């Protein structure tokens, strides 16, 4: 699995909290750093795609691990 600089556990949180927490966490990171997000909200799969597309950050990967959704986002 790819490396990451920071991790956000958004397990148990529902829309729109995973996105809001991700935005906040990315705000404290520097360009090209990678954030790993773990979520349980099934809606977050499409949401993080849309978030990346609209904010210019890169969604490096999106997948499932042990029943949870895991995303890697590289800060623009």
């Amino acid at each position: 699995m790819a490396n990451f600089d920071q991790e956000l556990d958004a397990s148990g949180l529902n829309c729109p909290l995973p996105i809001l927490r991700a935005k906040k966490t990315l705000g404290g990171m520097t360009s090209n750093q990678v954030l790993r997000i773990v979520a349980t909200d099934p809606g977050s799969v499409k949401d993080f795609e849309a978030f990346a597309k609209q904010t210019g950050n890169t969604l490096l990967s999106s997948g499932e691990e042990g029943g949870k959704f895991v995303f890697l986002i590289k800060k623009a």
Partner: protein
Amino acid sequence: MSDQKKLAIIATKGTLDWAYPPFILASTASALGYEVEIFFTFYGLQLVRKDISGLKVSPLGNPGMPMKMPFGPQWFRGINWNIPNIIQANIPGFESLATTLMKKTIANNGVATIAELRELCQEAEVKFTVCQMTVDLFGFEHSDFIDGLEYAGAAKFFEFAGESDICLYM
């Protein structure tokens, strides 16, 4: 000129269920880089009061609202208690009961509270404008409301809404 997208929302409802859409969309749009303004008018003023613990939801006359219990075994939680309006209307405290159950359901599902979402909107610098006409109409004082609000009329709303990319009435 900035090419930042703009979202304008008019919030007109003052119930616990209808408090969600404006704050969810405003905070999300803000996270996506939008500049956001919410214009609170009529019952929407309830959403910017200092104390919002009194927001309620009513299943009365709302056939779209499932009445399910947020506790007990799964088979019990799955039951939709279809209670006729005439009975709901005659049980004192039915609305409070429904509100308590709704709040429990919200917490069970990891959904944010209204106070939390409102705070996130404020942190994200979503602009809150309040209809001064409604303040007078319903006999409110500015001290009833949270800080950081601007009081104005319809013309002020159009100043922002006229430039917006998305405009929603709720």
